[in-house]
């Protein structure tokens, strides 16, 4: 062996110190550094709101305590709806839609990955459906459903409340997205699992139900929750067909008092709903990542 490629350890020990500028951020110094940078950022944001040329106007139109409170409780005498009462509509809309989306999304995904020759037309239909519904802006879907279905004059579907049309539109669009999430999850289960189940003589249905689905659900939950967060927020778009949910209620308040604080209140209420959900989703993702790094399943 020649010594040309491997340096001789007996000479001088190699230099192993980090550059000085990085030494500063190590250990206790790192804590101080992160505290300092946090304070600076918060200060900068507040400073913009306080010292901007239109800062005072901005604060009095969007953060006026009187109108924030008025928006929250509403005023029946002036026909102003409560933003808080409005959000109840958003909540039941997304709760109902989430359940419907879970069911329809799974049906669409299951149809798309089926192999039975009998289901060919349904497969094509399901593929076309996901392409179309993901391709049309949700705003247009809700306008078409909200103004189109009543015109059909059909029993059952033509005499619903405006919020119900909103739910139909939300379910139609989000089922397409969620179907794709499911499909990715179903495909993420290793093929060997399917071979093993089929080799035991399990039918295609039993293989799906007992082996593939339970494993796919794990991988699917975080992206699914992400879609649900979008769904919660998109209940606000139902306001365009006139359903009085929180955003429509806020709009009425703004138009009555010529003060935008009702929008701020509505935004705060949305955050109260979505932040726990986003935190929970992040928590699940972090836990899954930890597990994977630990070499578990």
């Amino acid at each position: 062996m020649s010594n040309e490629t491997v340096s001789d350890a007996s000479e001088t020990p190699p230099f192993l110190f980090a550059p000085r500028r990085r030494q500063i951020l190590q250990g206790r110094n790192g804590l101080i550094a992160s505290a300092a940078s946090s304070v600076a950022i918060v200060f900068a944001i507040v400073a913009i709101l306080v010292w901007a040329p239109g800062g005072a106007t901005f604060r009095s139109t969007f953060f006026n305590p009187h109108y924030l409170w008025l928006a929250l409780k509403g005023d029946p005498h002036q026909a102003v709806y409560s933003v808080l009462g409005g959000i109840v509509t958003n909540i039941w809309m997304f709760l109902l839609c989430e359940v419907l989306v879970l069911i329809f999304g799974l049906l669409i995904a299951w149809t798309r990955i089926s192999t039975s020759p009998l289901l060919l037309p349904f497969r094509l239909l399901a593929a076309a459906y996901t392409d179309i519904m993901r391709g049309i802006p949700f705003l247009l879907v809700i306008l078409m459903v909200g103004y189109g279905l009543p015109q059909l004059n059909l029993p059952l579907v033509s005499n619903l409340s405006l919020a119900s049309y909103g739910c139909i539109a939300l379910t139609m669009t989000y089922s397409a997205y969620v179907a794709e999430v499911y499909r990715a999850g179903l495909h993420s289960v290793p093929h060997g699992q399917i071979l093993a189940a089929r080799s035991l003589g399990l039918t295609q249905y039993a293989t799906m139900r007992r082996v593939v689905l339970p494993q796919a659900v794990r991988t699917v939950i975080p992206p699914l929750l992400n879609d649900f967060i979008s769904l919660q927020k998109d209940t606000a778009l139902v306001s365009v067909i006139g359903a009085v949910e929180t955003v429509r209620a806020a709009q009425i308040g703004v138009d009555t008092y010529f003060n935008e604080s009702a929008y701020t209140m509505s935004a705060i209420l949305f955050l109260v709903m979505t932040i726990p959900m986003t935190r929970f989703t992040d928590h699940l993702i972090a836990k899954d990542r930890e597990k994977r790094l630990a070499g578990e399943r």
Partner: protein
Amino acid sequence: MSDEVLKLTSVVKRFGDHEVLRDVSLSLHRHEVVCLIGASGSGKSTLLRCANLLETINGGDIELFGQSLLDPRIDPNLVRRHMGTVFQSFNLFPHLSVLDNVALGPVRALKRPYDDVRVEAMALLARIGLESRAQEFPDRLSGGQQQRVAIVRSLAMRPSLLLLDEVTSALDPTLVGEVLDLLTDLAKSGTTMLIATHEMNFARDVAHQVVFLDQGVLVEQGSPEEVFDRPRHDATRAFLGRVR
């Protein structure tokens, strides 16, 4: 009923233009152990997958107990319930406990009551010394333990024969022994098995018949002594020379 369990007649299997099995004929009798040997890519695994209908063949015939499996009225699920299959990579179900891995087939395919199956499954696990691990998930077990559970999982279906596809190839060398011991045990108790393997000493010990495949062609077939000690073909000699 004759004691012929599985019979392959002039089986041809193609993937596109590539012929993976060319005119392979083979028969397996009750209580018989047949070992398939040959290099990787020689068609051993494909042959096993054709036998349990995971692959459809392009020519020839496969019979189980004298009935052609090419008959369009055949239900592959019923066929597979008679053939236990064990894979190189175990393929245990990670979301089920060891016990439920073993019980899944009898409960969901044979529709037998869980309580009965449970007792049998525990007895099978006791046979491989893992009854104390029944409630754990498969990823807590070593590779050798997982593969033994996989073997027991296929036995729980009370199959007429076992198909084993290089079941020790994915294992740490120190874990190969425990799996081969179990298979030797099964062979002694009269289990009918078709085994694709790279373990020549094992094949010599347990096989009644050894079959050498080379590029999809069945080159040589006979008792272990005939194939290992007095190979008649150059290809067999060359292969055995390389693996020794």
